[in-house]
């Protein structure tokens, strides 16, 4: 059972984190409609700060969720999560990319509902191609070639590298790519979201 968990669990965990992050991120629009953001702005907080705080909240929620799942699987199923600092770096870069992607999609989509539909589609595709539902090596070669570039596979590859004690650089390389791409997306996404809220266009 332990080995099955090591094969299947990381991909599943990453996919689940995607959906949780999406739900938490979408709360920004609820808060906007409920005038929470307006009240904060009246208190002298800038929109950029509000958006950054909401993204930070989302990041912390992802961390908590991952920590709970990792601790639970380690304690109950005996899954050996090797090299915790590296695991933290891999998961953080994944979370940063996720936040960047979410901010961009929610910033550009015409309505939060449309953004929700887009993210569900993107996450499911990434999960299928990234090997969340079955071991990545068992996928057809064409799907592997495409799936290699999904965020779930890139993070999962890092975790797999830790399980198999591959060199640190090999585990870190895809994560660094994710982190850089995530930061760029997050910067763009924050700007787009800020303009959107400033113009009052939320629906």
């Amino acid at each position: 059972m332990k080995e099955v968990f090591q094969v299947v669990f990381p991909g599943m965990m990453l996919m689940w984190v995607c959906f949780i992050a999406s739900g938490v991120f979408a709360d920004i629009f609820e808060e906007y409609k409920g005038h929470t953001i307006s009240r904060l702005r009246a208190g002298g907080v800038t929109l950029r700060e509000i958006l950054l705080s909401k993204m930070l909240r989302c990041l912390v929620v992802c961390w908590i969720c991952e920590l709970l799942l990792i601790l639970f699987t380690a304690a109950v199923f005996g899954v050996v999560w090797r090299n915790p600092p590296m695991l933290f770096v891999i998961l953080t870069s994944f979370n940063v990319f996720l936040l960047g992607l979410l901010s961009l999609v929610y910033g550009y989509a015409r309505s939060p509902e449309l953004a929700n539909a887009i993210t569900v589609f993107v996450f499911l595709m990434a999960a299928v191609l990234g090997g969340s539902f079955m071991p990545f090596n068992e996928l057809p070669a064409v799907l592997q070639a495409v799936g290699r570039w999904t965020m779930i596979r890139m993070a999962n590859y890092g975790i797999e590298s830790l399980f198999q004690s591959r060199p640190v650089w090999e585990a870190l390389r895809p994560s660094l790519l994710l982190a850089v791409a995530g930061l760029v997306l997050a910067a763009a996404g924050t700007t787009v979201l800020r303009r959107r809220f400033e113009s009052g266009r939320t629906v």
Partner: protein
Amino acid sequence: MNVLRIALNDIRVVLKDRMILVWWLAMPLAFVFMFSFMVRDQTQDGTWLPVVKLDSVELADVVIAQLRTEKYWFDVKPAADERYVKDWDRALIVPATFSQDILAGKRVDLSLTKGRGSPEKYLAAQTLLFRALIRFNTAIAAVDLIERGCPSNRKPTCSRNLRSHPG
């Protein structure tokens, strides 16, 4: 500073909701359980046997195909992954000269490495390997007989050797 203050307050509000344990822990675990049992058909009790294929000729694929049964999950790795073998619970290494030696009628040793994994699973992998080698040797002997024109009812004297080399 405002960013941290707002984020902390938000997190406090989120954590007050007891339902998060269901959404953040119970649901993903239930989901993983469901899929673990589906994947279990491939991994069957979690026995994972990575096969490092150093020989790129088709004959190596034939012996790997003989290994494949419903009870194990074989993970064929490229030659570059040989350096990770020491960290795996167990691994089968198909040598680079595998096909060449078989075709030359020389003895070939396959290595089954032993790591920190369960000894029962290692034994199971060893048994599986022996069975596969018997099947493979039988097939090689049959081909050999046909090649040399020996009648099939005569005792074979011209078969080639393939042995496994544990450890």
